[in-house]
């Protein structure tokens, strides 16, 4: 969309500068004329001059200084790693047309680079998919299952079935958005696999109001949103805990949001780790570019958070609450959408384009 020239600070400064020069010249001419005519009553030209000067200062503040400060703030936040959309806010003024184009270009470059990082996990799955023919994998797993059944090893058969379902969901499904029900089913499958390892040491409960269940289960969300967080809760939360670990998935919706809380009563984390984790989730741009995130852990949360940001906007995402020896809650905030067409974020196409799951 072509912007009006007054949208740019350079034009505003130029306009105000010309006005200031013209008015100063006019004022000086008036003063000179009054002086030449020998008039000593200069009050009116002075008052007019003061009013004009005050108006000029006010205009300069509203039109130039304030937008400039806002732009400066946005740039600082961007440099601090906050968001990728922070620099080009369509409602705020830009320096010059060229600087605006440069910002857009920068964002474009950032977006594609970010997406490469964001979808690293998916890319791994993709690589797996390319290397292994999914049907070969499923058929092999099915063969193992039937062999196990023939041999009377029911638990091995069940485990193989769960593993096949998990792989089928993870690497075969090409849609980006899935229903909450499908995602929950995958979580249950994943949990089933983990239970073979942990046995009675691990419990999972899913809480959802009965009257809202049907509606909530039909909402759409990015694929593999809950399972990586559940995996995190098991590995970092309950696995290190002595005794039984309880995992809970709470689903509820408010007017415009779907809230999913995945809780564990594991070891939790101290205040500093928690603050760092939330900062990484908040400063998504920093998380994209910083290499430390790969070594620090918690990549699953950052990954899920970034996908949500890209698909639905930065007002949605993840937030972590935790206390040492009490447990950790990860709250996922999503928009309540029933179909893929409702995604409004312009980055959607980019996300689709690169992930291609």
């Amino acid at each position: 969309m072509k912007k009006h020239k007054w949208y740019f600070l350079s034009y505003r400064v130029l306009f105000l500068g010309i006005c200031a020069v013209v008015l100063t010249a006019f004022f000086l001419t008036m003063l000179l004329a009054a002086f030449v005519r020998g008039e000593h009553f200069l009050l009116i030209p002075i008052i007019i001059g003061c009013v004009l000067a005050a108006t000029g200062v006010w205009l300069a503040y509203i039109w130039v200084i304030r937008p400039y400060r806002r732009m400066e703030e946005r740039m600082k936040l961007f440099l601090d790693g906050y968001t990728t959309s922070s620099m080009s806010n369509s409602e705020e003024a830009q320096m010059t047309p060229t600087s605006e184009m440069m910002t857009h270009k920068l964002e474009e470059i950032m977006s594609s680079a970010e997406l490469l990082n964001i979808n690293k996990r998916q890319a791994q799955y993709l690589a797996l998919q390319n290397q292994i023919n999914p049907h070969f994998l499923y058929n092999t797993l099915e063969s193992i299952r039937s062999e196990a059944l023939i041999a009377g090893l029911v638990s091995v058969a069940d485990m193989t079935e769960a593993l096949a379902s998990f792989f089928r969901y993870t690497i075969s499904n090409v849609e980006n958005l899935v229903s909450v029900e499908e995602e929950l089913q995958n979580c249950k499958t994943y949990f089933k696999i983990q239970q073979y390892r942990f046995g009675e040491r691990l419990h999972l409960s899913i809480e959802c109001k009965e009257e809202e269940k049907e509606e909530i289960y039909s909402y759409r969300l990015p694929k593999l949103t809950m399972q990586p967080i559940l995996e995190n809760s098991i590995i970092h939360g309950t696995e290190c805990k002595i005794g039984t670990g309880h995992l809970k998935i709470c689903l509820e919706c408010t007017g415009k949001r779907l809230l999913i809380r995945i809780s564990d009563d594991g070891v939790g984390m101290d205040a500093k780790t928690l603050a760092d984790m939330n900062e990484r989730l908040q400063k998504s741009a920093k998380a994209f570019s910083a290499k430390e995130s790969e070594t620090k852990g918690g990549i699953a949360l950052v990954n899920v958070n970034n996908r949500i940001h890209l698909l639905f906007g930065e007002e949605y995402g993840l937030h972590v609450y935790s206390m040492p020896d009490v447990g950790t809650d990860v709250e996922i905030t999503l928009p309540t959408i029933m179909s893929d067409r409702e995604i409004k974020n312009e980055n959607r196409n980019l996300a689709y384009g690169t992930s291609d799951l």
Partner: protein
Amino acid sequence: MKTETLRMERVTYKEQGNVCLDNFSMTIRTGEVFGLVPVNHYGLNSLLKLLKQNLPLHYGYVYYREKLVNQWKRHQNTTNRISVIQSKSCLAEDLSVADNIFVLRAGFKKWLIKPQVLQKQLQPFLEEIGMKIDANAYIDELSAFECFVVELLKAVVSGNRLIVLVDISTFISESELVKLHEIIRYYAGKGISFLYITAHFEEAKQRCDKTALMVNGQIIKCFETRENIPDTFSLESVEDYDRWVRQQLSATEENQNRQAVFETSRLYYGSMRDLNIRVFPGECMVLQDLDNKIFKDLIALFQGEKPDSGQILLQGNVFSSCEDRRIAIIQELPTESMLFPRMSYMDNLCFNMDHRFKRVWTTGGIRKSIINEYGDLLGKEVFQCKVEKLSQKQKYDLVYTRILLQNPKVVFCVQPFKSAEVSIRSHIWELLERFLDRNIAVVILAVNLADSLALADKLIRIKHGKVQEIYDKEEFIKLPVNTPWLYLYQEKYAKNE
């Protein structure tokens, strides 16, 4: 489906470059009573400011009734229809109840005010919550609880959908809190949400649907009321508290066969009706007024008022003069009410010492001795500081050490833990314990029992101006309220029974 009344999404708020709220996320649903326990007070005032007014954010989003009202990208400096009720009332004292509720309301545009009409309008509001307050009564004639109800009604009438209640248990008595709980639940049922800020997790758990813990300007964990908090609930400070109470429980001292240091006998004055209490040297007694009425009268007696009948005995003699330094009073919020910012630290410290050392103001030697003696305790650097520049902990040190230097026989502390954050509360215990170690009796005047019981040897509950129940330490287990550290008393005494 419950809608959201307030949603703060990853809010980072700075004041003068300092981060006050850090990645703060909180959701309050319609008709929900949401508890907030600030472990330290860092960022609490900023939160209250942000709730009332949409100030510029460093980052984040604020939604009120599902509408975006504040965001980091742009701010409009608008106000939200949210009421904050705290111990300092914001009602106009010289106006009537009806005027406060209806006339001092945004959007009231009438030129002619008919008191009868306002009275009629107010009546249904009072009836539905089962309260009887005279619509024409002036605010300064009302009790603290009635003032609170008026503020609550004012918020309801103004159409505010979120009401913030800050530390209300410090000025509302226990019996009134029960009534208040019913009122809150009634309005919650009508879709009004409450943010209940309290210093005690037990209290929040008792009254709220959900409770969040706030540390250093961020919420670290939320608990649903129905959730069982694991036994490992071990906030650092709570561990300190537990250790403290255990120490107190193990320290037993017999007060029998000793002379009472302070005693009231059939005392009548103001709201007091036949008040008989007795405290021994080195004993810590908690005086809990269930109606929150007698404390002002009791303090007035120490400040020179004469009782209607009965007497106060101090070390066996009738207490007569307010200049008697054997009784000391530590007022409510002492760091604000008992310090003189224009006086130096030393002058503040030695303020009550002249009865012990006549030449304290003229001789530098005495003051030098004090600095030498108390330097290690208070910190050498504080003596050169301006009083207003001191930290909260240093201010408490100053007030309590001043009383220690006064060397009284009995100290009355009016709600010593009011508005103090967790670490400060723990420090106040240490300071009170210094009195007890010097065999000075401590009487804590409390409205609610949280914190106060930790040091107590005895609890006296007062209702309608006279002693209703007396509990010794081993009987705390029988208290009919949710006593903090009840489990510790149970551990010690239940086994014996």
